[in-house]
């Protein structure tokens, strides 16, 4: 049978949690109405020893989710934040030490101003209000991207959040805002060029390790994602973590981002654990 790409989540209908606010995402019972309550256990389908160390997510589909419900895009983005909170909670308790999310691409500046302004204020609000949750879940936040374009109040909120969570160690949340993979490499190149100009380095010293060290993801212990998940069925990388994705397993989920819950994450992780990663060599 012809398959366009493997594997794709077959979930097309809205998540049950849209209709049952008190139930947890994916339909599993929780003691409290909040999906963040309790400590979610690792499903038996997943092997603890084969969990990815770094999961990256392109959170695509918020606007489409809102459109399908006759809501403005802002409602889609708010729903997307709930998905992110839940994903972060799961990563924190399932032993995934690094989660990177593509919140705002450098191309997204071309969106309507009202939507961009809303997103900037949403980011600021979420960062400020989630600090207690970050402390509880041991989340260390790190924001990557061209911060010069961000409103100064958001820049300050980011700086404060990074400073106040720097000692947290359970899971690192890397949020890419105003980011592009190509921009990351260009800024790495500029840093290297400055060092060459200053005589700290010779041109002949430039190698892969040097480029990697200057990338923005060098803030992480595991800078290279093992698994990239993109929601909403789109089959492309869209300028996200270009260098870092060289050997990442790609998983394309059909679900729109606000519908991406525990079941979808389990499906992605099961797929990941079944794959053979060879890095260009041979397995035998």
């Amino acid at each position, binding site marked *: *049978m*012809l*398959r*366009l*790409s*493997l*594997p794709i989540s077959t979930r097309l209908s809205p998540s049950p949690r849209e209709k049952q606010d008190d139930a947890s995402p994916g339909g599993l019972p929780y003691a409290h109405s909040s999906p963040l309550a309790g400590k979610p256990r690792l499903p038996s389908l997943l092997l603890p020893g084969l969990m990815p160390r770094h999961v990256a997510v392109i959170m695509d589909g918020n606007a489409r989710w809102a459109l399908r419900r006759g809501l403005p895009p802002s409602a889609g983005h708010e729903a997307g934040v709930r998905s992110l909170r839940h994903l972060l909670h799961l990563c924190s308790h399932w032993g995934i030490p690094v989660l990177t999310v593509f919140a705002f691409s450098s*191309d997204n500046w*071309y969106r309507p101003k009202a939507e961009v302004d809303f997103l900037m204020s949403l980011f600021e609000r979420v960062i400020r209000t989630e600090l207690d949750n970050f402390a509880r879940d041991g989340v260390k936040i790190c924001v990557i991207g061209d911060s010069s374009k961000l409103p100064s109040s958001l820049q300050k909120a980011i700086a404060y959040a990074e400073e106040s969570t720097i000692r947290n160690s359970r899971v690192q949340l890397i949020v890419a805002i105003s980011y*592009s*993979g*190509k*921009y990351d*490499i*260009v800024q*790495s*190149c*500029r840093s*290297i*060029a400055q060092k*060459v*100009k200053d005589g700290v380095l010779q*041109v*002949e010293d*430039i*190698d*892969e390790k040097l*480029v990697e060290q200057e990338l923005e993801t060098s803030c992480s212990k595991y800078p290279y994602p093992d698994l990239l998940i993109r929601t909403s069925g*789109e*089959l*492309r*990388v*869209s*300028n996200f973590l*270009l*260098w870092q*994705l*060289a*050997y*990442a*397993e*790609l*998983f*394309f989920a059909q679900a729109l981002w606000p519908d991406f819950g525990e079941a979808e994450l389990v499906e992605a992780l099961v797929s990941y654990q079944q*794959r053979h*990663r060879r*890095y*260009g*060599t*041979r397995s035998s």
Partner: protein
Amino acid sequence: MEKQSSTRVLLFSSLRDFMRRSIFCILMAGPIPNHIAFIMDGNRRFAKKRHMVVGDGHKAGFESLITILNYCYQLGVKYVTVYAFSIENFKRKPEEVQQLMDLMVDKIDELLEGSFLSKYGIRLYFIGNLGLLGERVRLAAEKAMKATAGNSRAVLLICVAYTSYDEIVHAVEESCREKLNCTEQITESFNSPTENGHCLDEYGGKKLTQKENGYMSHSLEEFRESHSCEIEEATSLVCNGGTERSGDARLILRTSDITEDREKCPVIKLVDIERHMYMAVAPDPDILIRSSGETRLSNFLLWQTTFSPLSSPAVLWPEIGLWQLAWAVLGYQRNYSYIQKKRKQA
């Protein structure tokens, strides 16, 4: 009996040709991708499946490549890029690496002697760090590139001894080298000895003038062209005995301006890095197809496939056919307007 059998074969062949032409007609109703890239994965698994030796799996892979190339060029695709051998593949067993190198040389010779390249007017490029290849392979590759340099109807880019990391590092090195050279040129021309104290009388001239009393005179156009710097036009200053040149398009810079230029010339931009990529000879791929069902990029065209739709049919490379190609092209056509918009924004 034999007559019946040959009639059936002819009928089947005619039916197959008819179906192929029909598929082409359907695809050609929409936009055809200009550039398709392939990760040719699965040769060894194919050999194992058919109880063959690994080398025969790679030979079957080559036959499959020719078939796919035929389809692509008949469809109107101009550029095809294939991932033949990664730098990481050098870590495989030496015997397998040697087999692949020998196969590459044999197939290059076969292509040059045959009619396939001239049939479609294909220009060959071997993309990668060719210095890592053995001399025999490298010479064969250079010979093939030289022999097909005059072709222009279609292009086949064969990535060998290639990884995106190596390509990007090379581009970064060249960009840094270019910046360093520019900075040194500015310094050199500023520090060169004064001749007779006069500005060269060259309106829009080709040479930079010498320093005179802390000033340099340039043809504005030439300076901008050679240094790609953004500099403000200074007010015209004294030159040649103090006479102000009016109505002259020369740019007279003060010493301090030179220092400033040196500091900010040139800032490395995205286009500088792109210019130094091995793959700068071709536009970005419109589709990336990886056979064998694996969904990862494996250090292939990371820079160039940022907006390319990805397709990963489950078939092994020697089994890939028109169906898989057609499916990928249909996927491209479905997303065409969105991708074009994103490319323009980028």
